[in-house]
């Protein structure tokens, strides 16, 4: 199965190389720019001015998170927690994970699976693609962050530790792995890629919203536990909290279970 999987992975990497490269370069560049922007804000003392301008009730809701955000490290880490960037990254893994549904829809799967290719090879291809694709983009972000830190010297404050960047990158990768696994399970059962992508994308948007609202709306805090975003808190890392093993376990555990479900669904379904 290794040879077939290798052929499929190579084929898929070639197909996705452009979006992966574009996203990696764009996010790396964004991180470099963030470093330069953070340096400028730090130099002009703008962080404290911004915090002072924020209404009291907002400061009360966000508490120390706001202080974390309005710091050199907080700005440097913006790419790891900004809604738009996280949404784009989740969109990328949804696109990667729904490739099997797309291949069934177009009939390409017929050409592949009519040969002596085990169905598990198709799933393994997608899992490897998700792991490698997400790791590549996140690694590019980390590289951009390191480059930004190298180019931008924060005045009057210590340079964020390299371990912070690795922790941010790893926790983001775990979040993406979780969404990749869930999307793969959805895609393994779907006949049309657009359907699988819509379900996974809508679920991500809804759960992101629930997690966001739950931070200042107590009634839905219980619901937020079901959102993978609940277990991804990069600003806690910026505040020098350790990487929470429980959250990482939930994210990776969900990913593993979802991938197992995807294998089972794909092995039993009609193509």
């Amino acid at each position, binding site marked *: 199965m290794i040879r077939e999987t290798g*052929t499929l992975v190579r084929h898929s990497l070639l197909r996705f190389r452009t979006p992966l490269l574009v996203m990696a370069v764009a996010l790396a560049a964004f991180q470099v720019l963030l470093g330069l922007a953070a340096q400028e804000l730090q130099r002009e003392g703008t962080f404290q001015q911004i915090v002072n301008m924020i209404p009291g009730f907002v400061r009360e809701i966000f508490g120390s998170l706001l202080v974390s955000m309005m710091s050199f490290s907080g700005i440097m880490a913006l790419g790891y927690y900004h809604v738009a960037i996280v949404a784009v990254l989740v969109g990328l893994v949804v696109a990667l994970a729904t490739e099997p549904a797309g291949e069934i829809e177009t009939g390409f799967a017929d*050409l592949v*699976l*009519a040969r*002596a290719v085990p169905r598990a090879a198709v799933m393994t291809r997608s899992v490897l693609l998700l792991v490698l694709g997400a790791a590549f983009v996140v690694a590019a972000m980390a590289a951009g962050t390191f480059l930004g830190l190298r180019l931008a010297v924060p005045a009057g404050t210590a340079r964020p530790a390299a371990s912070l960047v690795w922790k941010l990158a790893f926790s983001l990768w775990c979040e993406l792995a979780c969404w990749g696994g869930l999307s793969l399970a959805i895609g393994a059962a779907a006949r049309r890629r657009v359907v699988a992508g819509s379900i996974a994308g809508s679920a991500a948007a809804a759960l992101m919203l629930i997690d966001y609202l739950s931070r200042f709306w107590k009634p839905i805090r219980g619901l937020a536990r079901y959102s993978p975003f609940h277990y991804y808190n990069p600003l806690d890392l910026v505040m020098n909290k350790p990487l929470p093993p429980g959250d990482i376990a939930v994210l990776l555990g969900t990913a593993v279970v979802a991938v197992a479900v995807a294998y089972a669904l794909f092995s039993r379904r*009609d193509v």
Partner: protein
Amino acid sequence: MATALPLAIATQGLTKRFGRLVAVNALDLAVAPGQVFGFLGLNGAGKTTTIRMLLDLLRPTAGRAAILDHDCQADGLAARALVGFMPGEVGFYRDMTGRQVLDFLSRLPRRVAGRAWQRELLERLTLSDGDLDRRVREYSTGMKRKLAIVQAFQSAAPLLILDEPTEGLDPLMQEAFYQLLADVRTRGTTVFLSSHVLSEVDRVCDRIGVLRAGELVLTAPVEEVRRMAPRLVRVVFRDAAPPPPARWPSTIEVIEAAPTRWSLRVQGSLAPVIEALAGLPVSDMEVHEPRLEDVVINYYRGTA
């Protein structure tokens, strides 16, 4: 002691239901090795569903299928390693070139027949290097079908499963395809071909199976099927002929009895006609061989 060769395709009670719809019902099929088997039926009769179960793309609701003694589900990889498949609707990625498609598919496991054979296929189907370097999105329907034929034939698979292979091919390419079929057949390859084109089946197949509403209603050698249809016999006389005998055998039907011409529909042997014509002033006689479609269409209609 000679050992019997395994059947190229064998199904027993093969059934597929989609909810309430019974797409294929208790199909018992046997295709001997080396045959060109025509699998016929109207749209929705269950031909493609059967093919997809043979390739384990669809899972049967009941029954079993085997390819060269390998169970299509339990031993699907071994079964599919022996098959070259051309789908009815070809799903190539549009942004790949023809060459990339062939290279990619040739890297997936199957017996590789070599570049020389692939080159020969491309030449016979007039796919040039220039064509192969173009993206599939620029291909016409016929070119996509030719590429699909090459990918199915390029391995030395002992069984070819072809789902409506000539759909969209121009007459010249159809001819090239028939020649290709004849060539692989001489090498002992079994061909399982689904088609709507009865004249094509009549020409290339040894045996046919007719599927109606998911059930196999006829399976027989093409020659035998042809003999099921009556022949049209036209007899022309030099002078005025006597009326046809009043008591023909039941296998003969008089369609027309003009003074100098008889038109008869004859089922089976022509001997009674020849006997009746002895001593009559016959100037000409035409015998129209029955066509496969004369019989098959009745099976389609359910009137056979």
